[in-house]
């Protein structure tokens, strides 16, 4: 597959290079104020009444830019939108004042029961219409555009009528939302479903992409599993470099959810992303620029 470099003149907010905020690192961050451009928080971890989670959040937010990333919006569910959840989410947005808010292009619950997993949708016109309608409702309620992220998936539905990137792109266009492109998930799904990851990258509108995720995965022999418990592997770094060439400077972060290393080690891994970007993009486009208060 030929790689399409696209138009890298797109102007988008650029936060720089960030990490997922994890409880294991609270003390280190508060004591050392390490040099990281921003943190991504898992929204649900802070949708609690009070106590330490919110206290830590406020103290870290005072010094760092943040974005919010959720796992329970269930945008593809056929249940009604969970307005209690959205109300809590909006309240957290008001508290954090994040650069942006994201969740996944998936469904997580139906009939009021939560799977607590990111479950794939069939890629067809009916699903597009269903999801677009809900994204519009969510964006209207929150008063801002959201980002949707691609999953790692392990099944293909017989009712799918198009590939994932065409489905994803069409939803983003029609709902006028942004895209959080998870480079590792593209790699994992490409392996599991036998497609070329470059087809995926080339199929995504450049100006919709606001953020990249990087992560590690594991293998069960035949399938790759999105476990976030390893370092980012070399082929995913290579794919990240390719993505930078197509999309330009995109705020990038590493997700680590299990087997979490000490903060300095994770920070070193983020430096690999910074190095790759520095070799591909001019320094002036890699200076964080964002039209909002980086510290609350």
């Amino acid at each position, binding site marked *: 597959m030929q790689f399409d470099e696209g138009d890298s003149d797109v102007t988008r907010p650029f936060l720089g290079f960030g990490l997922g905020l994890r409880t294991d690192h609270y003390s280190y961050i508060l004591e050392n104020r390490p040099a990281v451009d921003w943190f991504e928080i898992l929204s649900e971890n802070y949708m609690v009444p009070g106590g330490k989670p919110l206290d830590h959040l406020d103290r870290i937010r005072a010094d760092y830019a943040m974005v919010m990333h959720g796992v329970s919006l269930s945008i593809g569910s056929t249940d009604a939108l969970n307005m209690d959840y959205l109300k809590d989410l909006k309240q957290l947005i008001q508290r954090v004042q994040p650069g942006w808010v994201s969740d996944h292009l998936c469904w997580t619950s*139906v009939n009021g029961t939560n799977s*607590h*997993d990111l479950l794939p949708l069939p890629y067809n016109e009916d699903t597009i219409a269903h999801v677009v309608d809900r994204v519009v409702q969510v964006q209207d309620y929150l008063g801002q555009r959201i980002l949707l992220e691609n999953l790692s998936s392990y099944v293909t539905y017989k009712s799918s009528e198009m590939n994932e990137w065409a489905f994803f792109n069409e939803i983003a266009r029609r709902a006028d939302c942004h895209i959080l492109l998870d480079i590792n998930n593209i790699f994992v799904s490409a392996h599991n479903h036998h497609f070329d990851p470059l087809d995926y990258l080339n199929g995504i509108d450049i100006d919709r992409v606001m953020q990249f995720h990087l992560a590690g995965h594991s293998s069960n022999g035949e399938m790759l599993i999105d476990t976030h418990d390893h370092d980012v592997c070399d082929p995913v770094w290579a794919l990240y470099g390719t993505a930078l060439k197509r999309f330009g400077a995109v705020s990038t972060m590493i997700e680590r959810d299990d087997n979490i290393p000490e903060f300095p080690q994770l920070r070193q891994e983020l430096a690999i992303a910074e190095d790759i970007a520095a070799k591909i993009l001019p320094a002036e486009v890699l200076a964080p620029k964002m039209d909002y208060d980086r510290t609350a």
Partner: protein
Amino acid sequence: MTALRKLQHEFLGYLLDSSATGIVGNIESSPRRSAEQRMTLYADAYELRLKEALSTDYERLHGYLGDDLFETLMQQYIENYPSHHPSLRFFGRHMIDLVERLEPFSHLPEVAEITRIETAFGNSFDAADCQGVTLDQLAGLNPEAWTTMKLCFHEAVQRLPQRYNSFKIWCALSNEEMPPQKTAQETTWLVWRQDLVSRYRALSNAEAAALDVAFSGGTFADLCEALLDHFSEEETPRQAAGYLQQWISTQMVCGLSTCQKLG
């Protein structure tokens, strides 16, 4: 029902009960991986994720029961209490209901008590914050206001009446020590949060009685009356004021309602 809704029902149905294989017919098989094998990945991840949540919330209960019994408990919980909250944080909140009705746990009263302890600490950890009442505010009250004064406690404050030495068992497990044998030991324990840290202590019978009155909406005068069962008429006001002072100084009280505005 739309095709998408039917598919989601079948998918979730398989996660809840892998004998409900309706979803499999919707999934493409590949030469090296059947549709059912692919769905198994999701079913395994579902179970693993919920077990991780329960193991985190009930770590000491796990330690007390051992791996096999705790595994049985988790399996039963997952089957009987599917998650109806978007956050895993609240998935295990019905554990006490299960241990009180499921054998053999229902015959082991200390298991319910340890479960209540762990649930109380979970509740305390992220209970809503409140601006605590200060001793200065208390000192600013007119003497007449004391009689009608009612207390509002921080949500983290929980009383745990126990019939066995379950708190000592819990403490030993927390310290990774061999837990003591179960013995009858009636004590009411208090769990609360001070400076964002959850704390606990045993209550004397008198303080437990005073807290019971205060929690049930009684006035300070009612509280003093309850303490007459424990102290002389001369001692009672001093003891009651002492309790109140301690509750306030340890950030347990988030509101006083009186006929007088607080200064």
